[in-house]
């Protein structure tokens, strides 16, 4: 088993052949520990404690699942706040997350290509859709695609510019919509983590409830 040792040294392994058995057993046994026992323990503790989160924070209305509070979805109608443009599949495809991966100097990103509106076009459409002047400033999140393509949030600046359109389409006062947006605006988490944001699906659900 062990090599003959000098008196002041602990026993030590010399034959490499002896290491195959622990190697194979470690791969198998530790995989069971980390890949089976650990997940089972985690499931057993976490699911009863946080059932809603564990199931993906699904949102139901009238018995049907309308989406997940964490996963963005596409909105095109004027009476809803619009999410950011998306590069996931054909837009907000939650089985195919991803960004454009276009380099900042790639002409396709700004000028677009067939079936791919560039930032220039997105900005023009955003201004037209929201009744803004052709040179009105547009917040950058409204005309860029997120990393996941499933960004559930927009910036408060983006939401603010959409308020008049939504209010007009719903026959509501801008102030009423603005109050609702303010109620759905989250600041940085714990005051310093991340950026201020508005969850688009939750805001639109709240809008529908106002009727």
């Amino acid at each position, binding site marked *: 088993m062990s090599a003959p040792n000098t008196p002041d040294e602990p026993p030590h392994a010399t034959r490499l052949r002896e290491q195959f058995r622990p190697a194979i057993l470690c791969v198998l046994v530790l995989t069971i520990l980390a890949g089976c026992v650990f997940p089972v323990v985690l499931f057993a503790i976490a699911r009863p404690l946080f059932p809603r989160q564990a199931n993906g924070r699904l949102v139901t209305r009238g018995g049907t699942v309308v989406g997940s509070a964490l996963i963005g979805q596409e909105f095109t109608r004027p009476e809803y706040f619009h999410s950011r443009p998306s590069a996931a599949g054909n837009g907000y495809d939650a089985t195919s997350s991803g960004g454009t991966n276009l380099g900042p*100097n790639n002409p396709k990103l700004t000028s677009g290509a067939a079936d791919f509106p560039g930032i220039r076009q997105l900005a023009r459409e955003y201004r037209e859709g929201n009744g803004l002047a052709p040179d009105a400033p547009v917040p950058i999140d409204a005309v860029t695609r997120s990393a996941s393509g499933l960004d559930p949030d927009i910036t408060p600046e983006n939401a603010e510019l959409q308020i008049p359109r939504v209010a007009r389409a719903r026959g509501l006062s801008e102030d009423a919509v603005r109050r609702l947006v303010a109620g759905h605006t989250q600041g940085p988490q714990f005051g310093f983590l991340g950026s201020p944001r508005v969850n688009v699906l939750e805001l639109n659900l709240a809008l529908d409830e106002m009727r």
Partner: protein
Amino acid sequence: MTSARLLEYFVFLALVVALARPVGLYLARVCQRERTFLDPLLRPLESVLYRILGVHPEQEMTAGVYSFCFLLFGVGCALFLFLILMLQRWLPGGPADSYLTTPMTPDLAANTAVSFATTTTWQAYGGENTLRYLAQVIGLVAQGFLAGAAGLAAGFAFMRGIARERSSTIGNFWVDLVRSLLYVLLPLTLIGSLILVWQGVPLNLAPYTIAHTLEGKTQIIAQGPVAALEFIKNLGTNGGGFFNANGAHPYANPTPFTNFLGMLAIAVLPASLMITLGHITRRPRAGWVLLMVMVALFVLGLAVCDRAETAPPPQLAGLHITGGNMEGKEVRFGLGSSILTAIVTSNGSTGSYNSMYDSYQPIGLLALVIFLLLGEVVFGGLGAGVYSMVMAALVGVFLGGLMVGRTPEYLGKKIGFAETRWIALYALLTPVVVLALTAIAVLANAGRAGLVTNSGPHGFTEILFAYASSMANNGQAMAGLNANSGFYNITTAIAMLAGRFGLAVLALALAGCFAAQRRLPATAGTLPNDTPTFGALVFGTILLGGALCFLPALALGPIVEFLRH
């Protein structure tokens, strides 16, 4: 906004530095088999495991045997994972076959197996359309722990080599592996994963949800046991996520807090290991000096990247668009949490990005590529980061010794001919592998065929980035490169193996040399290793050495892209 961003950077670094001492001392106890507060709970389990595994914990190993076990275990893990991936179609449970659109070809399975067994977790596939839930859990979650623990074990052995005197051995790999798993990774991951579920990371085996959106469209939402993978991927410095968009996916990383916690999981253990090193070699100040070098490099990279990404993108000048570069970034993270994460993951040998690097400005990207190329000296991979940084320091010692004519010594160990040979081979391996593979890819049609999204200098950067990331066992990608081809699956796997086993074997060989020496007392003739001056020397050596190796390649990529536009 600026102030919130800077506050987040500051709090992050302050926490990493504040936790370094307590965590580092705990890791020293795990490394030296001393009593910890978890012993009453874990010691019985540890003994049972040794019996089941056929491990004799009192047996010691020479550096050669230790390296052999590290290698054997890594190869065993890769083979086992390869089998699981190839057989995944027979695994029960979701998701339905119709969603799994990327076929698990043998070359993709081999690449993924090598990738996860080496903590690289480079992903040439998208999780939600390639893998079954059970393959993700039994295959990838388990590897997150096992590969992470093996890395920590190698780090322990390396430090022991420096700490021991006149010893022919550097520890027992199987003991280090089991102790890393039981005393470090499992308990922390259990707590961390629970926090993730609380914050909204799903944990289920449900079929993909079919939702009917407010506008009457159908949206299919990928589900799964996401939380089981997402914490250990960071703590084990693996980085491969459950979904294609990795840390950007709102299910993988739902809130700025989950993101911040993930960044701490990446950085705290590797940073603390510097304190462990100082403690077990009885030169605590030397450990702090290396940690401060890390922090200084980190701040430099963060400042460069922050400046490039928060400025309004010059490409959009005149379009009346306000704000910094948000292409490929998520609103909940904004610019600050995205940039901080990019710098942490590029350093921490962990590819769990939360923004898309292809869409970074050339100079922002430059900062990230440089950190990959420097070999993950800042924090670095779990365990591997120790020898990355010490090797850089040793080059510094050697240069410093040459400059002032003093005996090159580090922490009381002489750097003679044998030691210098291992250090030189270590320092050369990364540039040789990365530059050679990049050159081959640029010359080969199969390599250029990967450039499906971008071309020109940006495309060159994508290729350089892929090999730098594989060699550094980082795994993050500029995803515009189509890397799921026979050519990239094989060449990136070569880089991953060289980065994991090549570097570890050289580092452990050096540790063996050091262990055999006795510790020399510091004399007037030694260059002190625990002063700010020494820190500055190491800082300069890292930057200068990096520049000498990689400036030409960087000039063809991000630098020329910046100058041309």
